[in-house]
């Protein structure tokens, strides 16, 4: 990502090249160009430190070639996880008064506002 580098040597991303079939869906979904195509059409990790562990690649690899511990890189979520002894959660849909960070647009969820037109129905 131009102009931005985060802490290096920490990403949990791993690629099993034996399982890679070269479908390259990981190249499509990665927002930080972590992967590159090798000359045998299979994929290699070209920039591990650019990985933000979003998990899009592993979620879309149909061959189980990619493993990582996905999660939200959000301090509030990680601190909340420590305090409550649970998995990190950004709490965007929990408590209205919780001081969530600007991720998820600033805060929690409200009830839906109708658009003024009826919900679309499947034709009979």
């Amino acid at each position, binding site marked *: 990502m131009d*102009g931005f580098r985060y802490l290096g040597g920490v990403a949990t991303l791993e690629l099993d090249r034996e399982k890679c079939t070269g479908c390259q869906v990981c190249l499509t979904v990665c927002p930080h160009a972590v992967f590159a195509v090798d000359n045998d059409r299979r994929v290699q990790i070209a920039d591990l430190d650019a990985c933000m562990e979003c998990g899009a690649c592993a979620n879309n690899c149909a061959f189980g070639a990619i493993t990582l511990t996905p999660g939200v890189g959000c301090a509030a979520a990680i601190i909340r996880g420590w305090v409550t002894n649970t998995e990190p959660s950004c709490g965007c849909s929990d408590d209205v008064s*919780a001081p969530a*960070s600007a991720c998820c647009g600033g805060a*929690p*969820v*409200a009830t839906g506002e109708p658009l003024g037109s009826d919900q679309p*129905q*499947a034709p009979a």
Partner: protein
Amino acid sequence: MTESTVPQVSSTLSAADTIARWKLRWRISRDGAAVSPGLFRIGEPSAESPVIVTCNYRMTFDLVRRDLGGLDVWLLVLDTRGVNVWCAAGKGTFSSRELMLRAALTGLERYVSHRTLVLPQLGATGVSAADVRATSGWRVVFGPVRSRDLKAFLAAGMKATPAMRAVTFTFAERMAVVPVELVGAFVGWFALIPFALLGIGALVSWGGAAALIAQPLAAYLAGVIGGGVLVPALLPWLPGRALSLKGAEAGVIAGLLAGLVLSAPPLMIAADTLLAGAVASYIGVNFTGTTPYTSPSGVEKELRVALPLMGAASVLAGVLWVVQAFGG
């Protein structure tokens, strides 16, 4: 085909849409953050028209329909409970299951003759194209990151350029989230901190000048501005990679300036600098929730180092104020 049962949405944003966005940006109210999920028409789509998928966060929905203006497409809005695509994908509401469910509930297959769904690339964290294909037969194509590239993506035969695939974090994008971060520093029990600090100031500088009493509060506000405004504004240029470090740097500068402007005695300037540094460091590291490039492993690593330092700096600031007040 009874297209008339599918509501048509406008691709022109109204004043009400602008007010809704403003309320979300300034954290005034999340009422109206969610729009109704379902199937919508942009223009006059036919059975061959593309199906664009998005979430039901108000700001996202508004951007997408604006950016699709002039096209004839179907818009399938998933129920993400009013949360944006990337966060919802991470939380599991923008998911393979919701996508297939929403397509089935709206009877999408009766309106289109093809089986292709165009999803935002950042939805890939929650949607597995292979699972969706195998379970429902819908073919997921991951489109560009930003909706403003959708027209070019569709015109190019659903091909994205590398630039369309890359996440950015421009100055304008960073500053757009400043209000919500700033307001966040003063909601909930955080709202009590300024009063507590004013109390501490009155206690340690009893009978002193107003500028002295206001020291702790001024230092705190300097820290909030350092972490909440300077960090986003100067993000690429503040030295170091850890957000807590960038925050501390911004806070130290802001705290020092506050102390000098209030013509505080040297020990109090030192205390201001320490407290502002700690506060800005905390707000800075919390900016990791907004930045699109920080990994959870990295955030955890820097928190383990930075949190104790923030605590130590705050305590030391308190000690210096007391020493100055009673010894100086």
